[in-house]
């Protein structure tokens, strides 16, 4: 009993470490004043000013959705090709795909800067930014799809051919539906990684283009009044993102619970 209490206490302590900063931020996002620690009364003031960061949010979401979509298509096809390839090219793609996973983001980003400079284009461009995000996320799509291919009964594809499908039909009608959960997981992972990224974006984004990461970084890294004036607005933004995340998590889990129950 004592042990149980102790372990529950420990878990609560660590959770507190994780959540106290977030809750502090949420509480003070409703503060009339600008500074944490000085409560000046309840207000939606900072929420009303959210439109000042609208561009940043739009940039972030567009970048995440578009790069994740491309990464998902490239990564899924790549995973299928790699999985069924017996030759050297498949192995080469497999190794190449693991490099961005193990490599540090700074090196990945800077290597791309070198390439862009060599190509003569500016080292900061929207094109480079999207490429950087796809390089970062596509390998994780591959890593989510490969296990599903491994789980799939290898004779399903052959069964489809046997029943009269062409290879393309068999792939589209049989293989893709089987690995769809992995593709979806990969897409979600790609979105989160892209949303979360700071280093690649900071290295490759064109001047004046900010995502949430780079914008928030600027306002907390630089101590000038100009830079930090947006900090309370980002508190409000954090609150909203946190609420959206919680809602998404709850909805997704309710759905999967429902599925499991209906199966029983």
């Amino acid at each position, binding site marked *: 009993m004592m042990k149980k209490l102790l372990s529950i206490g420990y878990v609560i302590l660590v959770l507190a470490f994780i959540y106290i900063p977030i809750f502090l931020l949420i509480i003070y996002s409703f503060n009339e004043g600008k500074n944490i620690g000085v409560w000046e009364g309840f207000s939606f003031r900072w929420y009303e000013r959210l439109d000042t960061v609208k561009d940043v949010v739009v940039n972030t979401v567009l970048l995440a959705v578009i790069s994740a979509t491309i990464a998902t298509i490239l990564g899924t096809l790549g995973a299928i090709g790699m999985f069924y390839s017996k030759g050297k090219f498949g192995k080469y793609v497999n190794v190449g795909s693991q490099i961005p996973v193990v490599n540090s983001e700074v090196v990945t980003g800077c290597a791309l800067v070198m390439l862009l400079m060599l190509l003569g284009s500016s080292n900061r461009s929207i094109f480079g930014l999207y490429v950087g995000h796809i390089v970062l996320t596509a390998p994780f799509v591959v890593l989510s799809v490969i296990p599903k291919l491994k789980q799939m009964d290898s004779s399903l594809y*052959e069964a489809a*051919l*046997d*029943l009269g499908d062409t290879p393309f039909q068999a792939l589209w009608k049989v293989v893709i539906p089987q690995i769809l959960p992995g593709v979806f997981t990969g897409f979600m992972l790609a979105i989160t990684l892209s949303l979360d990224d700071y280093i690649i974006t900071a290295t490759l984004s064109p001047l004046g283009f900010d995502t949430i990461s780079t914008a928030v970084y600027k306002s907390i890294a630089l101590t000038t009044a100009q830079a930090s004036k947006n900090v309370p607005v980002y508190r409000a933004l954090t609150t909203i993102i946190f609420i959206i995340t919680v809602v998404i998590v709850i909805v997704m889990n309710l759905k999967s619970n429902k599925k499991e129950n209906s199966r029983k």
Partner: protein
Amino acid sequence: MAKQKIIELNGVYKEYDGTLAVENVNLYVRKGEFITFLGPSGCGKTTTLRMIAGFELPTAGQILLNGKDITHLPPHKRPVNTVFQRYALFPHLNVYENIAYGLKLKKLKVTYEDTLGNQIERIENYTKEEIDEKVKKALKMVDLEDFEKRSVTTLSGGQQQRIAIARAIVNEPEILLLDEPLGALDLKMRKDMQLELKEMHKKLGITFIYVTHDQEEALTMSDTVVVMKDGKIQQIGTPQDIYNEPINSFVADFIGESNIFSGTMVGEKKVRFINKVFDCVDDFEKNEKVDVVVRPEDVKIVKEEKGMVGGVISSCIFKGVHYQMTMMVGRSEVVIQSTKGYDVGEKVFIQIAPQDIHIMKKEFVSNVYDGYITKNNTVCFADGEFACDVTQLYEGSSLDEDGYLLLKSGEKIDLSGVDVKVEVGLKDIEIIDNDEDGNACGSIISIVYKGDHYQVIIRTDEDEEDFVCDTEYTWNEQDRVSVRIPKEKIRLTLKQEAKR
């Protein structure tokens, strides 16, 4: 009534990464036949089936369907359907959609006659109603009428199996391929399904090509059995032929229980084994070494005066319908099946009818290898270096102290690097239960009991050379062993003249 050949395989080879999975397979299947490819795992039976289905392309050779070459035709263009080992039902489709899958893809040439009497041809798909009707009929065929809307993941193994069969036969293929379809079912279910498949074969009248490693299944169901081993066809015949007249000791050992003895022909239709001369019906050359196969149920226990050989029962096990007993005749074991059991230690006499003694040519009389002589006057062959007597290469020669061979004529020659043929008797190879101690090592790939000894085949690791040896001791397949051969038992003959 020789029916037309529907499938023909001519000199088919299949190679994977340098190893032959299928080697020179020649066979044909008659229309409407139930043919089974039988053999242990890795014998090439599934590969052969997959080449007929079109999932694998032969490395060499030709596959004909109704006389037309289909060797390179993709699977979706072959009028052949497959029932897969693990069913391969599409998990995202329900039972109905699974069965209708192939029908929806089928194209039909429909000829119309309009009011003016003109004939018009159109390519159409099956209508929804036609598909519906066919699916229902197929489900009825496999006794699962009300399962249309069920998800395939909720079905039991046996039900999934039936759906897989329905999905294949609904397309009315000319040939149905079945790849160990009953392998995942339990014994009782398997027996029932065997009969049902046989029944279905009769009703549908199409050709069935069946793959299994279960010899009983093969004998029960097939019109023709093809026994395969190491990618090669061993024997093709009716179940009766295969059982009663096995062509070699592998087939005899693989199909049913059998006694396999080493024997010698001692006269016209007379063979000597277990220290006794028996009359037989097969004729071989006198003094030829042969394998003798006798089925346990063909060994009859009789009264002493009628008995040909006597022995002592050393074990007796009740098997339901009969007793299985082992009798010792000298150092040989004879397995007997009889409805009457005898006590261990009891002396009994047996009789074997001439037609029940099956004689086949011995597969291995001695091991022959290509080798060469080393600097130290040893011989290298089959991944090993062995001490040998090189003076046997030249009559009357001897070795001098420097390792040169002194011929009778007084000439001195250097044997190093000379290619020789090496011959070693089956009984002259000693197997050692240890990787290190022998001259060459490998793993045991086959073991066959031959009455009073085992015939073991050891395959070396690098060159994959085989040592065939007769031994009294029992070993297990996959055992890691090494071999030792006494110096005087290695027989050498020159393949080229040595440099003088």
